[in-house]
């Protein structure tokens, strides 16, 4: 087995891996390597041929491949090494990465810092236990997206979409463009799991009905799917008797959630957050194993790639500083709690601040939709910071910068989202997020 040494290695060459590698190189890491299993860089962006990427990062609207190529070009302009068609088999503490490829065989890379950037995978029908038969024609929306956009084949002609995640919404529009009939989108929750702009641009603009509070109770068909049975659910998500109806279709696309693809981290013993299914990281995006960082959808599922790039740059810079011996040991570690109204917070813990640091950026997911709200930061049980939110949706990440002076040296740190008093919401102009 051949052996190599690098300062920073990113596992994955999607938007997170590329941004982390670029930031690491800029921050002074001499030898940087991107390991990518596919035959090109860009990751899942390459199959996202629709618009809407990069409004924040590049201040213009790009396609997925367009956004990816901005980064591919930036990587090409550096001396960052890229190994394509290369699968990482293990990344062990100490930075020993074993990978395999058809051209180079089995290879060991010794890395001073490692950035996990493996992205996420789609939840499957099995994970949500949808009963029925198992015919052809049932696909996760992303797998179907790859076939349509990259291979040029269609998964069916009469389509039903289960779940209102963004990929499913995008695919509703794509299949309509391709000439298929998209009959409906069924979402078990009383609210959509996709971005509002996708509901409008992918469903409403094409007259595709979105059924909220509906669950698929059976998939039918022997060779090929012939239809599904759907029922309404109550507020405990239990099926309401007598509400069942059938929808004929020859294709079911599932868009029922994304899960960080974290098996390498789990195998290495990285501490995980059971809610995000990603690593527990500090503000440097360092995991519980020193020298191992995480960014992008492998850390927590994002709704905008722009935030992925930004977060990966933090991880990449931190990885470079660790490789150069400049990242101080984490010192006193403090947990950050997602309290009332919130499901997740990243980073989940804080290490000692760098000198001169003014603020820390936090990313949140709300537990449920709310109207005008207050994002609150509580330090040692006292309200230390508050910001207004015009509207709160679980599908849209909340991002907030908290001044370091507000955090101070409090031992317990907790965020909450609470309904805003009405007059506050009415009186003040409230900034919109993401």
């Amino acid at each position, binding site marked *: 087995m051949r052996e190599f040494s690098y300062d920073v290695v990113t596992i994955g060459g999607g938007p997170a891996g590329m941004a982390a590698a670029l930031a690491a190189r800029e921050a002074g890491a001499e030898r940087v390597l991107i390991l990518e299993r596919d035959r090109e860089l860009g990751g899942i962006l390459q199959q996202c041929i629709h618009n809407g990427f990069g409004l924040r990062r590049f201040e213009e609207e790009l396609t997925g491949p367009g956004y990816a190529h901005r980064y591919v070009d930036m990587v090409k302009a550096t001396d960052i090494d890229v190994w394509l068609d290369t699968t990482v088999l293990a990344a062990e503490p100490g930075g020993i990465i074993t990978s395999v*490829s*058809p051209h180079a*065989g089995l290879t060991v890379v010794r890395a001073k810092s490692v950035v996990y950037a493996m992205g996420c*995978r789609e939840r499957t029908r099995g994970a949500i236990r949808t*009963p029925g038969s198992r*015919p052809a024609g049932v696909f996760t929306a992303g797998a179907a997206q790859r076939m349509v956009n990259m291979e040029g*084949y269609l*998964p069916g*002609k009469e389509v039903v979409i289960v779940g209102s995640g963004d990929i499913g919404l995008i695919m509703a529009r794509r299949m309509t463009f391709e000439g298929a009939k998209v009959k409906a989108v069924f979402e078990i929750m009383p609210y959509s799991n996709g971005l509002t702009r996708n509901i409008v641009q992918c469903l409403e603009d094409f007259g595709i009905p979105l059924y909220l509070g509906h669950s698929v109770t059976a998939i039918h068909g022997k*060779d090929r799917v012939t239809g599904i049975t759907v029922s309404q659910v109550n507020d405990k998500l239990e099926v309401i008797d007598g509400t069942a109806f059938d929808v004929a279709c020859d294709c079911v696309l599932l868009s029922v959630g994304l899960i960080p693809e974290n098996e390498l981290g789990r195998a290495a013993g990285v501490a995980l957050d059971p809610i995000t299914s990603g690593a527990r990281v500090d503000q440097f995006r360092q995991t519980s194993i020193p020298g191992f960082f995480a960014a992008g959808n492998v850390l927590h599922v994002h709704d905008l790639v722009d935030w992925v790039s930004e977060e990966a740059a933090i991880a990449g810079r931190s990885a470079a500083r660790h490789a150069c011996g400049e990242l101080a040991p984490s010192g006193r570690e403090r947990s950050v709690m997602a309290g009332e109204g919130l499901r997740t917070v990243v980073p989940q813990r804080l290490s000692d601040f760098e000198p001169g640091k003014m603020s820390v950026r936090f990313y949140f997911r709300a537990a449920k939709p709310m109207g005008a709200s207050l994002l609150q930061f509580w330090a040692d049980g006292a309200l230390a910071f508050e910001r207004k939110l015009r509207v709160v949706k679980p599908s849209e990440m909340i991002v907030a910068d908290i001044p370091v002076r507000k955090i101070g040296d409090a031992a317990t740190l907790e965020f909450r989202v609470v309904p805003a008093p009405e007059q506050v919401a009415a009186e003040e102009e409230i900034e919109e997020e993401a």
Partner: protein
Amino acid sequence: MTGSFGAESLPESADVVIIGGGVVGCAIARELARFDLSVVLIERSPDVATGTSKANSGILHAGFDAEPGTWKARLNVRGARLYAELAEGLGISRKATGALVVAKNAAEMETVAALRHRGIDNGVPGLEIWGRDRLLDHEPNISPEVAGALWAPTGAIVCPFLATVGFAENAIRNGVQMVTECAVTGLGMVDRQIVAVQTTRGRVATRFVVNAAGLHSGEVARMAGDDSFTIKPRRGEYILFDRSVGQLVNTVLFPAPDKVSKGILVSPTVHGNVFIGPDAVDINDPEDKETTAGGLAGIIAGARRIVPALPLGTAITEFAGLRAAAGKDFVIGSSPAARGLVHAAGIQSPGLTSAPAIGEIIVEMLQDVGLRLKRKASFVPVNPQKPRFHDLDREGQARLVASDPLFGRVICRCETITEAEIVAAIQSPCGARTVDGVKRRVRAGAGRCQGGFCGPRVTAILARELGIPVTAVRKDSTGSWLFLSRAQLEAGEGVDA
């Protein structure tokens, strides 16, 4: 004299025709392949192991369950012994985990004690009664509210697909012709003697027919005017969990049995997963493999009796299988209505375990009704080993990639299955023809993402290796097309067309 496998034309005649490419038919084919005979196996689906053989518990039963004196009792114990000898050479993954029948109270302790005595009558070796402490020591994740268990050290687990494919491949290597996508439409008879099998691919003249048609074996019997048995499909649902919780149980865990079935099991699989199931529901449609919300809830409740903390969040798939029940025992023997027709029917549990022993007994029965057997010197009892990248150490993996660069391209990331393994699964004598056929042979797509990432790539590899368009690649059954071309959609062609 290698045989063949595929949707090809039938020969005009054969010494023996086997109907059905499940584990039983394939084990019979492999047994017959020892002799100087022309043997044809016909299978309705594009692949072997697509009926009862693909959706079952994958357990090699020790043999304490069946009533002494039945075919089940006799063939189970013999079959379990044969697997121990055959598995490695045929490439059948098998793990000698042992099995436990868990008793929750004093009454159930009496039940398991009675099972032990029955097992001794059936010739099952090594049966022991364990107390609570020993049981909890062996299985720390089960309910503390247990009284003890029956320990059966010869209980084991096996991959049912690899068992079927292993028998089939060896049969083909030794000359058997397997014709797929070929359904029986009638049996030709003259004076109550079988003379031919009529199929959707034409007629094959033969004087000996083995009915191993599983759920459809009653219909095949009826074609010969034989109504000596009927098949009642009995559905069982399962939930399979990810390998990340593979440590949940070490052994096959049965609850103390009731009258209807062996109860809801919690068991490891040879590939490191865990499953729960099956229930037992009599149904009418021999194709109805739908899982139901009630059925899944029932097996979850049943499994929780043994393992209260089920990791439901790690479920990766649910499926239903159908057992071909014909009464209390297997239906094995010559048809009372047609000379030359031998049944291997009504093979419910412990059918997978019994399969190689059924193969032996059917050959004897064919001889009894006049088939002349002459052993052939050229019989090779084993299949060449197929390297599994994931199972090797780093040096072994490095050697594989050096031997064939396609071992360096991981297609299925969940299970670490390389392109070389997928190509080998397609190109082997009993090669995969469908996406699910690849999954059953090498586990590409059998992991936590269920083919979300590798499905499109496996489809492309199948199209390339089989020399067919992507639109002709199927999931599993004959009509299970996966993708349409844009031209087909524009022309208004349906995937069902």
